[in-house]
């Protein structure tokens, strides 16, 4: 259970303004928002990468300010960027990050094998990552995040720049982890269809504010989620709520 109350964060200008949100244990929350909405900033705060300015965050009853270490141990963060070493092989990357999680010996081997499996990387685990395709890199990025068998998994746009096959594979993997390990997953994306496909709950963030949060079914059955052809889609709702203006034009 993650509770966020009145979270505030600014750089040069306010980026998160009074964000309140809760995530149910064992659920997948799809965090949807246009470019610059503050998705990465929110996740970075939750994972202890950057500091918030004010507000209160608890994870499973642990306070983020006071018990960050304990929280970090049960979480894992898969950054939006491909966060690994290009000059190492997939195997060496997994070994390195696994060791940093404090894994060693047999346990480390086991977890690495599990991650290689789940990323379906058996054939190229010993190849250098800079020779990987986009899809392979994304799968490795995700796999590294599973090394510590996290209770809570933060995925920041895990499917950017991959083909349909890899994307499907990744989405299925995410569902599988959630189903089998009861992992709580927070998943950001600009892709409506992805969010529709994987998440239990949906939150839409725009310009630093949560403008909609609720159960996926409830949201999709809203009247204003019906498009011109009579289909209920998130896209229609999303555009309506965030309006069609381009976001990175300031």
């Amino acid at each position: 259970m993650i509770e966020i109350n009145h979270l505030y964060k600014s750089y040069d200008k306010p980026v998160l303004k009074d964000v309140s949100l809760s995530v149910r244990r064992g659920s997948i929350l799809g965090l949807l928002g246009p470019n610059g909405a503050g998705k990465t900033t929110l996740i970075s705060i939750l994972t202890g990468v950057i500091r918030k300015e004010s507000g209160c965050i608890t994870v499973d009853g642990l306070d983020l300010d006071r018990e960050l270490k304990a929280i970090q141990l049960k979480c894992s963060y898969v950054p939006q960027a491909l966060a690994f070493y290009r000059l190492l092989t997939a195997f060496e990357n997994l070994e390195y990050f696994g060791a940093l999680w404090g894994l060693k010996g047999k346990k480390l081997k086991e977890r690495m094998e599990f991650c290689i499996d789940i990323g379906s990387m058996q054939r190229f685990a010993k190849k250098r990552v800079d020779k990987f395709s986009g899809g392979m890199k994304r799968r490795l990025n995700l796999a590294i995040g599973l090394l510590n068998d996290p209770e809570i998994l933060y995925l920041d746009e895990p499917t950017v720049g991959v083909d349909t096959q890899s994307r499907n594979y990744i989405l299925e993997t995410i569902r599988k982890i959630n189903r089998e390990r009861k992992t709580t997953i927070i998943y950001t994306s600009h892709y409506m269809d992805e969010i529709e496909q994987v998440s239990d709950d949906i939150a839409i963030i725009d310009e630093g504010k949560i403008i909609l949060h609720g159960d996926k079914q409830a949201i999709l059955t809203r009247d204003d989620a019906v498009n011109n052809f009579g289909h209920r889609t998130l896209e229609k709702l999303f555009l309506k709520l965030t309006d069609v203006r381009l976001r990175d034009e300031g």
Partner: protein
Amino acid sequence: MIKILYILKKEFLLIIRDIHAITVLFIMPAVFIMIMSLAMRDLFELHGAVSIDVLAVNQDAGKKSEAFLKAMDALRTFRFHLIEKEAAADKVADKIKEQMLARDYKFALIIKENFSAFVEKNGKGKDEKPLELLVNPAVNVQTQLVLKSALDGKLAKLTWDAFIDRMGSLLPLAGIDREKMTAAEESLVEVHYVYKEGRYSKIPSAVQQSVPAWLVFSMFFIVIPISNTFISEREQGTLMRLKSMNVSRFCLIMGKMAPYLLINAIQVIIMIAMGVYIVPLCGGTALTLGDSMGGLILIAASVSFSAISMALLIASAARTTEQATTVGGVLNLIFGALGGIMVPKFVMPGFMQDLANMSPMSWGLEGFLDIFLRNGNVSDVLPKSLYLFIFGVVMLTLTVILLRRRGEI
């Protein structure tokens, strides 16, 4: 502990696979050491043994000229190239002159027939001059004087010793110790080379200068791999991942320092081995190491610490790898030029020697020279190590302040 091992492994793999880093850290200094040790061999040896080639013909009828030539050789300043003795005494001058011009000698020495007679003051021609020197007029006066006074000196000694020999039986009667009367073989003038830092009886040979100089220089180029990994870690989100994994600040900084300390240590070993084993194979002189292992380790570790700290500061302050490698590279070149890497400090004018003291590379280089050249020990390199250490601590503190302000650690 285990973590550090995996961090070491990772950084090593990254460096081994980074061809630029390998080139700059290992190949560049090795090549420089080879080239400079060989190319500047003769330049540096002006201070050791100058070699002036002299064409010579020995017409001496007696035996004294052999001792004379041997004594001249022992000076290790001249190389005598003897040509065949000429039977017809009046043709000697013409023949040697012809050869001197043909073979481009600057000097030719004729040891005349009467040489032994002159030395022993006995026989035909005992009062005539026993040596004739032919000089190419293009030769500078100094060189000519060096040769002339050496010839005069050795001749005088030989004549004096011969005199003592003749008086040999009389000396004990007069209560004089014969040993004490013979002229000393070695020069009685003790020479010291003086420059700002102090007073040394040795000047580095080409290899003694090149190895520590290019070693220190290349150790500072650790800035290349450090920026490459550190900046890409930041750009590619790896640092975010590490931070979310609750990797401690200490582990992050140690993870950056420890592997590169080791890389620097490997550089030290390889470059010293180059000087000791490879340079002599190619015709240079061998590097001598002095005898203070402790001092060597201390100065090497201090250079390494300050180089890595400076690299970390540059890598943290720069936004892109290009920026870091440019700033780092230029700074290293300036430190190198200033610090006596490219131009040895002892040939710099006084004010430049003062300036050189501002370069950390100069502290490192002088430390290594203390060990290799001046047989220094731990206490001799301690001040330089201390400077380097303080420099490193300042750089590291600035790095931590900068990274904390940016919220990166």
